[in-house]
């Protein structure tokens, strides 16, 4: 188990494995998304309250879920990098941030588009989940800004890991304080629980699974770039690039 782990954590081995693994995550992911989207758009009957507008949840919920998961991955791998000084972990953290920010933006945008026909407004300040998601987007921006402001990669890795860890404690507090704040102002809730049929739920779960696999493939691709850049002065990169068959 541990030798396997150490082998995977070695940059050249990871670089090769990720290239093989990435399409094997992307293809089933895309297939699941295609099937889930078809189900969600055409097959599943419409919601009796929201009509066909509820079909937006098939992209909104997976995005919102991934926005949190990416932050978790970012903070956890940052912590692993800090504690066990694992270089690969920092590359994972650096790669998760832009994808996480993209999905957070997507969750906000689709939530806002859903809000237009449902609430009659593009943006509802009183909704606690929209607020938490917006603050999460700001956390991502802060993280990426700190990373790009520090020139030294090793220093940027450690500093941003500390920030991500402080942020993850805060995400919980943000969630509860925003819930409390919204309960004071009679905020509206986007998606009520327990109003979904089994058929709707299955399609949504398929979508979430597909998005997760796709996210994995996107993450692996970005980590490869990050590893290549960080290892640019090492021998294995030199041998790979100058070899007659070439690398990728």
């Amino acid at each position, binding site marked *: 188990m541990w030798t396997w782990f150490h082998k995977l954590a070695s940059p050249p081995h990871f670089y090769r494995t990720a290239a093989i693994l990435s399409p094997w995550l992307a293809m089933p992911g895309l297939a699941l998304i295609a099937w889930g989207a078809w189900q969600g758009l055409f097959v599943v009957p419409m919601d009796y309250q929201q009509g*066909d507008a509820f079909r937006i949840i098939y992209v909104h919920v997976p995005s919102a879920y991934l926005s949190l998961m990416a932050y978790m991955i970012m903070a956890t791998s940052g912590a692993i990098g800090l504690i066990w000084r694992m270089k690969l972990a920092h590359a994972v953290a650096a790669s998760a941030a832009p994808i996480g920010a993209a999905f957070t933006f997507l969750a906000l945008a689709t939530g806002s588009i859903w809000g237009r026909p449902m609430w009659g407004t593009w943006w509802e300040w009183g909704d606690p989940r929209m607020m938490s998601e917006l603050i999460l987007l700001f956390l991502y921006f802060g993280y990426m800004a700190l990373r790009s402001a520090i020139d030294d990669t090793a220093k940027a890795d450690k500093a941003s890991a500390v920030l991500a860890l402080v942020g993850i404690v805060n995400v919980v507090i943000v969630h509860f304080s925003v819930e409390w704040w919204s309960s004071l102002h009679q905020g509206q809730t986007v998606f009520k629980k327990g109003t979904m049929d089994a058929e709707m739920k299955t399609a949504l779960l398929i979508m979430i699974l597909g998005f997760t696999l796709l996210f994995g493939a996107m993450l692996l691709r970005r980590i490869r*770039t990050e590893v290549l850049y960080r290892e640019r002065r090492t021998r294995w990169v030199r041998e790979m690039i*100058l070899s007659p068959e070439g690398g990728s």
Partner: protein
Amino acid sequence: MDGLAMGGYGAYVWSCFGLTLVIVVFSEWRARIKHKRVYRDIEVRLKALEDRE
């Protein structure tokens, strides 16, 4: 056509799915370009080093 109109909500539903596609594709495209640029930069530097030797 009724399936696409979604009871008047078609524009909202389709723009959400479209936006998701656009953002995922854009992110992947940016990642690919970045990878190629990093790879080429290293290649150029290594080739220059080799020529000097």
